[in-house]
């Protein structure tokens, strides 16, 4: 929880108010306390343990050691006085690389060595792995430790004059970088060779007591045929627990093997790569395929047979009277509230702190256009409610009409919005050059809202297509209800945007 409210420590000298910097200093130092407890706990696990210094253990212990160095230097940076001097220097670079490479990457490599025999069913060469650890550990320290002494050298520069005295320290760090980088070839070679021709690892090479070591290596496609029961003394019983999956056998396993999530992830990768990284941004040669692949992926995922069995062994607890899917929609909407809360917070910050004359005069954001759009969305919300009623009454014509109306109204909203955007961008208002801060907050907030309207139109199209095929009329109208929840939320967001941008 505390780590959520430390973000301001990146902004100590950006001109935020002194109160804010003080608050974030407190939270940043406060977050080190639970981390201390975690670190001490990790070290405590070694006491009275039968420690075998195999490669995974070496990497894990090494990661904790490096984490301590990175953590302690972080406490220096939490102090405003020190941070004012140290920000933007190599001291900061050294600090966060001890955390990210030292603790993060070393820990990940340790995990890879630990579970590789489970993944591949074969064991790697332990000596080579130990050599890899020694070179990595030495390499990381030779690479990053000297940077602590470069606390007068700015980050992100590659050239400097000899009289700065930074040369030898940088050379040392470079040597460390090559040692660390090249030593990773040992990892690749070791695991590559082991995967081909390493000795058989057996199900439990580490004599581990957790569940994954109780199944063969590599694990079968479906790990456990029955839900294992673990007793208090650690013994595992695979016997008479309730069967996993649907009662009629292996049908539900198909759900585990869907290829669509990775297709959807690929589409997001293409989309954002085109939007930001590959020139000229936006690069439509990547953005458009990203969108198309995304739609194909979502369509494929939506059409997949997906069998979910409500778990009999747990009672639903707090949410036991709420259908799972509807709960999911509401959790999504709650996250959307937070998202728009952030956007509105940014708007309020800019608005309240705007200098005199920096905000456009009243009615620059046309009140009549804003009001028109408000009435459009309110009406569309009513028709979305009517769609649900029609579905409940199994009236196909009614459902079709009640879905088609919000589609038309949503489209009208977007047309009105587009006209308004265009008017604002041209002379004499030209909001971009005359009121850049207002333009940014207005276009981003209403733009994101507009994207939500577009998403709603896509949903309606899907529902209309299904309605034509005769769906939703046999009591299975949950999808119409879920669409309504989303559409009303989009309406509620506009209910707030209208007074905030147009009326005050």
């Amino acid at each position, binding site marked *: 929880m505390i780590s959520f409210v430390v973000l301001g420590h990146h902004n100590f000298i950006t001109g935020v*108010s002194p109160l804010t910097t003080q608050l974030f200093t407190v939270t940043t130092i406060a977050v080190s306390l639970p981390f201390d407890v975690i670190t001490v706990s990790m070290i405590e696990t070694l006491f009275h343990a039968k420690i075998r210094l195999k490669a995974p253990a070496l990497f894990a212990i090494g990661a904790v050691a490096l984490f301590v160095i990175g953590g302690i230097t972080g406490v220096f940076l939490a102090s405003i006085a020190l941070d004012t001097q140290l920000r933007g220097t190599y001291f900061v670079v050294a600090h966060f690389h001890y955390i990210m490479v030292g603790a993060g990457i070393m820990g990940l490599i340790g995990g890879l060595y630990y579970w590789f025999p489970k993944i591949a069913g074969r064991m790697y060469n332990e000596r080579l792995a130990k050599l890899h650890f020694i070179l990595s550990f030495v390499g990381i320290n030779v690479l990053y430790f000297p940077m602590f002494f470069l606390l007068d050298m700015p980050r992100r520069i590659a050239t400097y004059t000899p009289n700065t005295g930074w040369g030898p320290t940088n050379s040392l760090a470079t040597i460390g970088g090559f040692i660390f980088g090249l030593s990773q070839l040992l990892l690749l070679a070791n695991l590559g060779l082991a995967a081909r021709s390493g000795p058989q690892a057996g199900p439990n090479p580490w004599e581990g007591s957790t569940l994954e070591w109780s199944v063969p290596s590599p694990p079968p496609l479906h790990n456990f045929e029955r839900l294992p029961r673990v007793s208090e003394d650690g013994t595992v019983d695979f016997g008479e627990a309730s069967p996993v999956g649907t009662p009629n056998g292996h049908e539900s396993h198909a759900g585990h093997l869907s290829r669509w999530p990775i297709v959807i992830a690929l589409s997001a990768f293409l989309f954002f790569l085109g939007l930001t990284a590959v020139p000229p941004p936006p690069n439509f040669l990547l953005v458009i395929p990203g969108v198309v692949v995304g739609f194909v992926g979502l369509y494929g995922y939506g059409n997949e047979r997906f069998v979910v069995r409500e778990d009999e062994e747990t009672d639903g607890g707090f949410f036991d*009277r709420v259908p799972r899917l509807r709960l999911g929609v509401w959790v999504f909407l709650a996250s959307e509230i937070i998202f728009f*809360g952030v956007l509105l917070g940014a708007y309020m910050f800019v608005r309240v702190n705007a200098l005199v004359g920096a905000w456009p005069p009243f009615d620059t954001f046309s009140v009549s256009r804003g009001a028109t759009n408000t009435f459009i969305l309110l009406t569309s919300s009513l028709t979305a409610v009517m769609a649900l009623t029609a579905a409940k009454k199994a009236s196909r014509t009614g459902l079709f009409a009640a879905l088609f109306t919000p589609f038309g109204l949503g489209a009208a909203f977007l047309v009105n919005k587009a006209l308004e955007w265009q008017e604002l961008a041209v002379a004499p208002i030209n909001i971009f050059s005359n009121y850049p801060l207002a333009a940014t907050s207005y276009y981003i907030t209403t733009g994101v809202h507009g994207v939500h309207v577009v998403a709603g139109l896509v949903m309606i199209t899907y529902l209309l297509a299904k309605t034509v095929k005769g769906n939703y009329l046999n009591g299975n109208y949950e999808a119409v209800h879920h669409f309504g929840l989303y559409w*009303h939320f989009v309406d509620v967001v506009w209910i707030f945007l209208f007074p905030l941008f147009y009326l*005050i």
Partner: protein
Amino acid sequence: MKALTNVLVFGLLVGITAGELVIVNLQIPRDVTVTTLIGLAGVKALFVAAFFQQLKDEPRSLSTVLVAGLVIASVLLTISFLQLHPFHI
């Protein structure tokens, strides 16, 4: 009956919006205008959530999900308001 309620709620929402348009043109202190308008937007949102999204008929546990989101959003809004005058140098 339910359809009638929804139409009445719709009428109320339209009425409040019309009220907002009137308030904006009244000669009252700006602070009062801003507070009233944001308050009215809150009332409208409440009616949409309770009737159109049928939250009033749902189990209370579902509303807590929504409240959790509102609380987090409020914290974020409050952080932005801390930048305001008394402390801002």
